[in-house]
C-alpha cells in the first residue's frame, strides 16, 4: 500500500533527480564538468516508479544515462557530483565519471558506456539471486536503442529459459541518439524498431506491458506486478515505458532531429508536474511539496560545493585498482 510518506519520498527522489540534472546541465555549459554527460531529466517517473519496489539485496543495471537510476537507488549525490567533477571524493574516486557510476552497496551495479551491455550483467545478477533463493530481484534498465543490440536479445532469451527474477525496463525516450523509435508523422518514419520491443519479449515467452512512462504511479503499479512475479519465482517481465528526455542525447547535442514544439508537447505531461497535481488533489499541501523541492535544490548545491572543494586524485591513483592485488 502506498502511504503518504512513500508518495512524498517518491516525489522527493523525482525532484532531486531533476534538480541534479538541471544543475549538471548548467555546470557543463559553464565548462566546469569534463567529458560526456547524458541527462535523465524527463524520465524520472520510470526510475523512481520502478525502484520504489526494491529492497536491500536487489540489484539494478543501468545505462549511459544513469544519474537518475543512481539517485533513485540512493547513491549519495555528493559522491556523484564529485565523480562528475573527476574528484577523489567521487563515488568511483574519479575513475569512472558520469557513464560509470556504481555503488554495489545500494544495489547499483553500474551505469554503462556500452549500449545494451547491462542486459547480460543483469542476467548474471538475477542468476545469483535465484541461486541463493533469497527472493531478491534484478532490474535491467535499457533504452529503446539498446533493444536492437544482440546482447539484450540474448539476455531476454536467457532470462526466459532460466526463469530469472529479472525485470527488463525499456525506457523508450523516443530516440536512439537521433533515430526515432516511433513516428509522429509520416514524414518522420521510425528508424529504430522500438515499436516491437514489447512484442519481442512476448516472442521470448516473457509477459510484457506498455506503460505510460510519464506517470509515476502507472509505472509504480506495473512494476509492482512485475516485481511480485519475480519475487514469487514466476520469472522475468518486461515493462515498455513510453517517456521522453528533455535534454539532448548528450550535453552539446544540437538536436536537429526534433522540434521545439515536440519537446514542449511532451513537457505538458511532465512527470513531476503530473505527480504534483495528483498529490495536491489528494490533499498534500503545496507548501510541503515546495519544501521538498527546496530541500532537493539545497542538497544539489551542497553537492556542487562538496565536489568543487574536493581534491583531484593523486597521479599515482591511475595505477591502482586494476586488480585486487597491486598493479602489474
Amino acid at each position, binding site marked *: *500500500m*502506498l502511504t503518504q510518506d512513500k508518495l512524498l519520498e517518491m516525489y522527493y527522489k523525482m525532484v532531486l533527480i531533476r534538480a541534479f540534472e538541471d544543475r549538471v546541465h548548467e555546470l557543463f555549459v559553464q565548462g566546469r564538468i569534463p567529458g560526456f554527460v547524458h541527462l535523465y531529466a524527463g524520465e524520472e517517473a520510470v526510475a523512481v516508479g520502478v525502484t520504489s519496489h526494491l529492497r536491500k539485496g536487489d540489484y539494478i543495471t543501468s545505462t549511459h544515462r544513469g544519474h537518475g537510476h543512481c539517485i533513485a537507488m540512493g547513491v549519495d549525490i555528493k559522491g556523484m557530483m564529485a565523480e562528475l567533477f573527476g574528484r577523489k571524493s567521487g563515488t568511483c574516486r574519479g575513475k569512472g565519471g558520469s557513464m560509470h557510476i556504481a555503488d554495489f552497496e545500494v544495489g547499483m551495479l553500474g551505469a554503462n558506456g556500452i549500449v545494451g551491455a547491462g542486459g547480460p550483467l543483469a542476467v548474471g545478477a538475477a542468476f545469483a539471486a535465484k541461486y541463493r533463493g533469497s527472493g531478491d530481484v534484478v532490474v535491467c534498465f535499457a533504452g529503446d536503442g539498446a533493444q536492437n543490440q544482440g546482447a539484450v536479445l540474448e539476455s531476454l532469451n536467457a532470462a526466459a529459459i532460466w526463469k530469472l527474477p529479472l525485470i527488463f525496463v525499456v525506457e523508450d525516450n523516443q530516440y536512439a541518439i537521433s533515430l526515432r523509435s*516511433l*513516428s*509522429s*508523422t*509520416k514524414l518522420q*518514419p*521510425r528508424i529504430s524498431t522500438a*515499436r*516491437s520491443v*514489447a*512484442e519481442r519479449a*512476448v516472442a521470448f515467452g516473457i*509477459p*510484457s*506491458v*506498455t*506503460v*505510460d512512462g510519464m*506517470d509515476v*504511479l*502507472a509505472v*509504480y*503499479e*506495473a512494476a509492482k*506486478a*512485475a516485481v511480485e*512475479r519475480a519475487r514469487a519465482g514466476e520469472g522475468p*517481465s518486461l515493462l*515498455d515505458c*513510453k517517456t521522453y528526455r528533455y535534454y539532448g542525447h548528450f550535453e552539446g547535442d544540437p538536436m536537429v532531429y526534433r522540434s521545439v514544439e515536440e519537446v514542449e*508537447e511532451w513537457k505538458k*505531461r511532465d512527470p513531476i508536474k503530473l505527480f504534483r497535481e*495528483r498529490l495536491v*488533489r*489528494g490533499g498534500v499541501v503545496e507548501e510541503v511539496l515546495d519544501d521538498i523541492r527546496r530541500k532537493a535544490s539545497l542538497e544539489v548545491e551542497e553537492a556542487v560545493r562538496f565536489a568543487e572543494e574536493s581534491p583531484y586524485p593523486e597521479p599515482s591513483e591511475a595505477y591502482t585498482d586494476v586488480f585486487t592485488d597491486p598493479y602489474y
Partner: protein
Amino acid sequence: MGIRVGLIINPDAGKDIRRLVSSASYVSNFTKVELGKRVVMGLNASKVDEVLIMHDNYGLGEDVFDMLSKHITTNLTLVETKGTGTVQDTLVAARKMREAGVKAVVVVGGDGTLRAVYKSCGNEVPMVCVAAGTNNVTGAYYDATLAGYAAGLVATGLVGGEGLRRVKSIEVLVNGRHADTAVIDVAFMRTPYIGAKAVVDVNDILYAVFSKGEPTDIGLASILGFIKPTSFESDFGYLVEFGGDGFEVKAIVMPGEFRTISVKGYRAVKIYEVVEIPAGKYVVALDGERELEVYEDDLVSIRLTPNGPLLINVHKVLNAICGLSLRR
C-alpha cells in the same frame, strides 16, 4: 466526396498491466496490422470510396496504408494525429473522421478504445469494434474481414437501421456537471490512485453501475452477468453495491481470472434515472479503466441514457445482404 469510413487501430489495446496479473493475451502490433488489413479488404469489397486511417506513432495505420493502397480501388488516406502515444491520438483522429463525414467507423481495439471513439465521434456514426483488447464486451468476435464488410455495407446505405443497434451509456456527473461517459460500466473504487488504469483488484470496488452485463462477457460486466444478465437492448441498467454480508458471486473479471466477490445488494436503474453515489474518495473506472478521481466533498452521481454508441450488428447486416445478392 464519396462514401468515407474511418479505421482506428489502437496500438495500445491489449497491452496493459493485465498481461502481468492475469492470463490476458498480448495483442501484438503485427496482429493488429493484419486485422486492419482485413477490415480494409472488407470495406473495399463493399465499394466504399475512401477509408480514413488513423496515423498512430507505432505506424500500424501506416503499414496498412503502405501494404494496401496500391492494390485496391478504395482510396486510403492517413489521418494525422500528434502521435502522443496516448488516448489523445484516438480522440483527435475520431473527431477528424466525424468532421470528414464518415458514414461508419471501424475500431480495432477493446472496450476502452470503443469508448474513446464514441466520446469523440458521437452517437450518430455507426461503429463496429474488432475485438483486439483485453475485454471485448462491445467487440465483434467476427473475423475483421466481416466487420469491415458489414461497416461498408452500412456506410454505402445498402443495409439500414435493421443492421444497427443503439446501446446505452452511463454519464458520470460531478457537482452537477458532466464529467465523463462510459458505455458498459462505471466503478467507484477505493484504489488510491489511477496508476496503471486497468482495473485489477475488483475487491476495491464499492459501487458499480452497469448498462449491460451477460455471463458471456469478460471483465466487470461479468459480475452483473452472473447476478442479473442484462442486455444492451433492455431499457434499464443496474447499480451494484459491493462488500458486506449479502451474497457472493463468482465472475470472470479478467481473462482466466475467476474471482468471488461479495455483494451487498443491487437494484435496477431506469433510463434517465440519476443515481447519487454516497460521498467518498473514489477512483472512478469507466469501462474498466481508472480515469477519474473524486473526493469526499464532491457530489457524484450517474445517469443511465439510451443515447450510447450506434453499434453495427455484423450478423444482421450480413444476413440482410444475402437476399440482395440473390436479386442481383
